[in-house]
């Protein structure tokens, strides 16, 4: 898939909660073809401490309106700058990067997202829904305020929620939600994005139930295009770049992951 370097225009910047923003971007030219699970490398201007680009999942693409969205979590000075972007400001961006999820067809699928790990799941849920799948989406967070955009996923299927404090949905970790217990066998494929420990636990559940699984990794990157070899993950075929061979992997191909899955050791690290 051809990669582009573009200057996109900020169309809107909406605060979802204290530390999450939804950036809507547009262009006079048609946006490149993108698939769910791919990401963009964003240059942060005016932030001297942010030298490298920042990778973000492509959250949503609206072909008709020729717009796309990025979900930005504020973690440092660079992301704080992005959260403060105003309408009509310009954003220099490399995209689409990475491989993307494998889309099931006419099947029954579960999407699991934790924290800002829901970022790629909107685009994925929408495309899976269009491919005739019965889609279920499980979202977890610490508290009700951390559950982002749950209402918007309802257009594509059942939405399940888990919060650690019980303020919304089932109380407890997302990985302990009932949909991952008795009902899990009904799914043919599980897609997961979130904190490392959560993804390992979901991968473990999928493997134990012999369900296909894909996880989207988030390693520290410099280039985003496979040149620097900084973002590697250990796979059964040796070190691979998360930015080009990933970010989406079958967890059974990830070296330390499959070892953990086989031995069933504690995964919530």
């Amino acid at each position: 898939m051809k990669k582009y370097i573009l200057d996109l225009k900020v169309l809107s910047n909406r605060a979802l909660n204290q530390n999450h923003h939804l950036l809507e971007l547009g262009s006079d030219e048609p946006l490149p073809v993108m698939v769910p699970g791919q990401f963009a490398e964003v240059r942060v201007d005016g932030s001297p401490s942010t030298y490298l680009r920042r990778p973000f999942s492509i959250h949503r693409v609206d072909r008709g309106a020729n717009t796309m969205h990025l979900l930005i979590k504020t973690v440092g000075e660079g992301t704080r700058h992005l959260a403060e972007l105003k309408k009509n400001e310009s954003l220099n961006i490399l995209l689409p990067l990475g491989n993307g999820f494998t889309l099931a067809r006419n099947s029954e699928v579960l999407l699991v997202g934790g924290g800002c790990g829901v970022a790629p799941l909107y685009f994925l849920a929408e495309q899976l829904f269009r491919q005739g799948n019965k889609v279920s989406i499980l979202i977890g967070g610490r508290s009700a305020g951390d559950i982002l955009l749950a209402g918007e996923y309802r257009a594509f299927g059942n939405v399940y929620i888990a919060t650690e404090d019980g303020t919304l949905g089932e109380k407890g970790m997302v990985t302990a939600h009932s949909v991952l217990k008795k009902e899990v066998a009904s799914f043919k494929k599980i897609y997961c994005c979130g904190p490392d420990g959560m993804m390992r636990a979901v991968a473990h559940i999928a493997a134990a139930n012999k369900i296909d699984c894909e996880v989207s990794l988030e390693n520290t990157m410099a280039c985003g295009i496979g040149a620097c070899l900084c973002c590697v993950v250990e796979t059964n075929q040796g070190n691979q770049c998360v930015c080009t061979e990933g970010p989406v992997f079958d967890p059974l191909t990830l070296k330390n992951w499959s070892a953990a899955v086989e031995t069933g050791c504690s995964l919530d690290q």
Partner: protein
Amino acid sequence: MPGLEVKLHKLTLKNPVLTASGTFGYGEEFDDFIDVNALGGIIVKATTSKHREGNPYPRMAETPMGMLNAVGLQNKGVDYFVKNIYPKLLKYNNCVIANVSDSTVEGYVEVAEKMNRLDHIQAIELNISCPNVKEGGMAFGTSCPSASAVTRAVREVYDKTLIVKLSPNVTSIVDIALAVEEAGADAVSLINTLLGMAINAETRRPVLSTVTGGLSGPAIKPVALRMVWQVSKVVKIPVIGIGGISSATDAIEFLLAGASAIQVGTANFTDPRTTVKIIAGIEDYLRRHSIAEVKELTGGLLL
């Protein structure tokens, strides 16, 4: 139109802009963004005698105006290079240079011999300056006798242009440069990364899996410029400047300090079009200053 051509020993480059090894993959990673053939040449990712997995993750830490890396020469080895990567490099009609590294003199010689047989590889850059491997790499480049020994051994088996890439992590880079010149190097390139370190204060742990790593980016430019200036005053062979070059102005500063050509490294990560922008910017500079040929700039510092 000003002349951009430069000569490096037997090589003729259509312009003085090269890519630094390890920051440009094998060229194809940048095909979507630029016409790679527009560059003076490309120096591809380091090749060693055997397959190397490199260092564990995390391998990178962002720093003020730069980054630390600890990749550790991950590559599939010279035989894989010859069979699978070399054919893909044939589409480039500019100067294609291989970067050669290893942990033993015999290893360097083996890679250099195999590269010597590849017609389309017009030069090698001997990497005696990688700070991220336990054995070899920088160990060769930090003493005059070992730098000289590995250069001499490779010189015996390598007929084409031999560039030696120098480490800044030494007491006197001038002495190392003179030693490799005497041992048969046709050019020197400098600097490789500066040994550095990053700590996460919250976790009290080092950021890199290897604790220390190589610092690159604009943060190192003044150090690199100083070293290029010092080395170019004493060696007779051409000097290639490297270190934080991100703009045409940066490139011209290195030429004025004594470099005949330059390499763009970390800036390829922040903007994959940096190299072609630099070429256009150099041309513009020459025009503004009514300079006929870029090579007139080399060593043109006014003191």
